[in-house]
């Protein structure tokens, strides 16, 4: 506790405190709240989709609006909810976990956050543009993007801004981790959450600019007479898919790897054992990151690639199952003979482990070229990526919030309500998405507002699950607000198995300025 000092806070009060703040904890909180707002917004859009799909035929919305909903739901959840949520965790946790006073570039950190609200407004505001938002799917495939109204331009600018924010945030994270570690905190002693973020930040710096390039090409094709993707002018729409997925595949690991980091903190704490195979976890994460740049065309088996290319992408994709398997087995080995307890963070980690593995397996199924050609652009794919995005990334984020909330606000959440939230989430999640595997195998295409009658029953089940899942997240908001307002005061160390610096070297709640003098960790 020696690293804590009283400090005069020379800062404006009220709203201006948050506009001008350079404190990593304030910025972390803003990231997390922003992502939660976007999460609810994207969730409402998902419910519009599921309401329309409750029955065959068109009841609720027109097809054009339906397409805009699928597009915005995807973009908002990926770029507005999941990614900022994990950047929020990074802001709060990385300095505290490596014994640094703050992020390396506090002012840039402020900018990284404050770029997000305008980007979010542009993205959501594109719905109000003449002709509405782009109804092109979150992958923004050309040449459809060239034919959209001005809503498309707003989305493109929004992606530019989001990309800048991510790149600046990532540069900050890498510099913090490389340069600001406390004496004695060697690279191979860093908590795994910090390692996963270091790797993710590199992925972001390498992948986001490629997306920026792809949407810039779309923009110049739309307005400045270039023909990157226009066949009439010598361009090639398939090339867009190559460029997009060169970004897009690392992107799915950008979302998944910080989730692995959170899980790698939660499981050892509640098993009261150190993480099994720490070094192999680091190497596995790095291998996943490198492989993610080499497998992008498995998203496009149906574009007419030569068989040799299909074989390469198939085998390279299946290779990723090896380091991912290393991670899953390490988590299981960590729990083996551990003294386990099942508080809410651990429950979400278990849910993650179980459902993410299912999502990984369906990913392997989709990696097989001949199978994928059958299932391409169908509900099996939708089920697969929701297992890894929702049950993977989102459940890990829930685990992280419940795990670190006492440290952040100094109050406990209601354990009973937390457990109810977990069970509601996991049951409704499976009701929503497990049945979509059946729909996909039966041949239901994705991104359609109406469907053939034989798909009716499972769609109805899925829609009921989706509304249940949505309302469970309102319940989560209630749990959060209750904890902040009237939660029990948290003990100094609510989790007896926790071993990282924020629990061992800082009081609860964490002071506004922590580790101004770095802790000495040399033995």
């Amino acid at each position, binding site marked *: 506790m020696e690293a804590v000092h009283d400090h005069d806070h020379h800062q404006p009060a009220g709203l201006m405190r948050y506009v001008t703040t350079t404190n990593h904890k304030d910025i972390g909180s803003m990231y997390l709240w922003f992502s939660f707002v976007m999460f609810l917004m994207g969730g409402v859009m998902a419910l519009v989709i599921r309401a329309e799909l409750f029955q065959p035929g068109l009841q609720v919305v027109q097809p054009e609006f339906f397409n805009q909903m699928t597009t915005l739901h995807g973009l908002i959840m990926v770029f507005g909810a999941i990614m900022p949520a994990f950047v929020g965790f990074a802001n709060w946790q990385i300095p505290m976990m490596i014994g640094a006073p*703050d992020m390396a570039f506090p002012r840039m950190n402020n900018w990284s956050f404050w770029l997000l609200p305008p980007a979010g407004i542009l993205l959501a505001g594109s719905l109000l543009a003449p002709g509405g938002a782009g109804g092109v799917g979150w992958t923004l495939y050309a040449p459809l993007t060239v034919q959209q109204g001005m809503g498309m331009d707003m989305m493109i600018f929004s992606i530019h801004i989001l990309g800048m924010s991510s790149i600046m945030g990532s540069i900050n994270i890498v510099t913090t981790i490389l340069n600001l570690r406390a004496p004695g905190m060697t690279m191979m002693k860093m908590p795994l959450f910090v390692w996963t973020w270091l790797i993710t930040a590199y992925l972001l*710096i390498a992948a986001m*600019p490629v997306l920026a390039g792809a949407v810039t090409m779309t923009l110049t094709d739309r307005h400045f007479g270039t023909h990157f993707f226009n066949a009439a002018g010598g361009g090639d729409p398939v090339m867009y898919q190559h460029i997009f997925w060169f970004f897009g595949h690392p992107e799915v690991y950008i979302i998944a790897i910080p989730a692995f980091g959170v899980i790698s903190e939660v499981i050892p704490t509640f098993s009261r054992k150190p993480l099994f195979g720490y070094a192999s976890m680091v190497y596995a994460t790095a291998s996943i990151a490198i492989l993610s740049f080499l497998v992008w065309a498995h998203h496009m088996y149906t574009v007419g690639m030569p068989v040799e290319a299909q074989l390469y992408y198939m085998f390279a994709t299946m290779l990723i199952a090896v380091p991912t398997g290393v991670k899953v087995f390490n988590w299981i080995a960590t729990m083996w003979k551990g003294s386990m307890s099942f508080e809410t963070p651990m429950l979400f980690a278990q849910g993650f482990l179980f459902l993410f593995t299912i999502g990984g397996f369906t990913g392997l199924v989709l990696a097989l070229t001949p199978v994928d050609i059958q299932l391409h652009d169908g509900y099996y794919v939708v089920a697969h990526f929701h297992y890894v995005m929702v049950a993977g990334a989102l459940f890990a984020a829930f685990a992280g919030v419940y795990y670190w909330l006492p440290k952040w606000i100094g109050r406990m959440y209601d354990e009973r309500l937390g457990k109810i939230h977990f069970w509601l989430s996991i049951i409704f999640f499976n009701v929503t998405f497990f049945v979509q595997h059946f729909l996909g195998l039966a041949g239901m295409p994705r991104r359609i507002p109406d469907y053939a009658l034989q798909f009716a029953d499972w769609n109805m089940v899925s829609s009921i699950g989706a509304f249940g899942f949505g309302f469970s997240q309102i319940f989560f908001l209630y749990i959060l607000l209750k904890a902040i307002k009237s939660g029990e005061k948290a003990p100094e160390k609510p989790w007896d198995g926790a071993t990282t610096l924020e629990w061992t070297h800082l009081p609860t709640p964490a002071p506004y300025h922590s580790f101004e003098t770095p802790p000495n960790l040399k033995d």
Partner: protein
Amino acid sequence: MASDTSKLENRQTLKKLVFIAILMFGFGYALVPLYKKICEVTGVYSLTKPDEVVNTQVDESRSIVLEFDANSRNETGWEIIPLENRKTVHPGELVQVTFKLTNPTATTFEAQAIPSYGPKEAGQYVKKLECFCFTQQKINANETRDFPVVLVIDPELPKDVTTVTLSYTMFEIEVKSTTENRQASLRERQS
């Protein structure tokens, strides 16, 4: 807070990482010529080159129905049609078919035809010896012109394929708005 030396270190790390980000933005654009090159090398992109015919043995034991189709993608209002809609041929036999282009407007334009095939896999067995799709075509105002296409169906065509569709889409090339850049890339495609 951070000391001066660590500030300097941070700045150096910042510079390196910004450099990587800019490099990757450039790499996104570098994928464009790279993609074209890879397609060229692997032969995916050879739509505008005459095919070489090696096997001229006519396989009279079976007949293939060849269907012809043509569409135009333009804003000026000219159209293109095949003079015959279908033809029954033997694999290995020399086939000639004519496409007729009518330009009822008072504008001159340049166009490029892009072939496509149904079923897709049959494309590699349609060997075109002469085709108006090999070059850009300049069509004068009020002109009507016949384009002959000479082709051979490769006898290697899988036995289960009995009908092959050859369809052309004629794209207008916007000469007025062309940048040097694009002309160069078009020239590259023709060569």
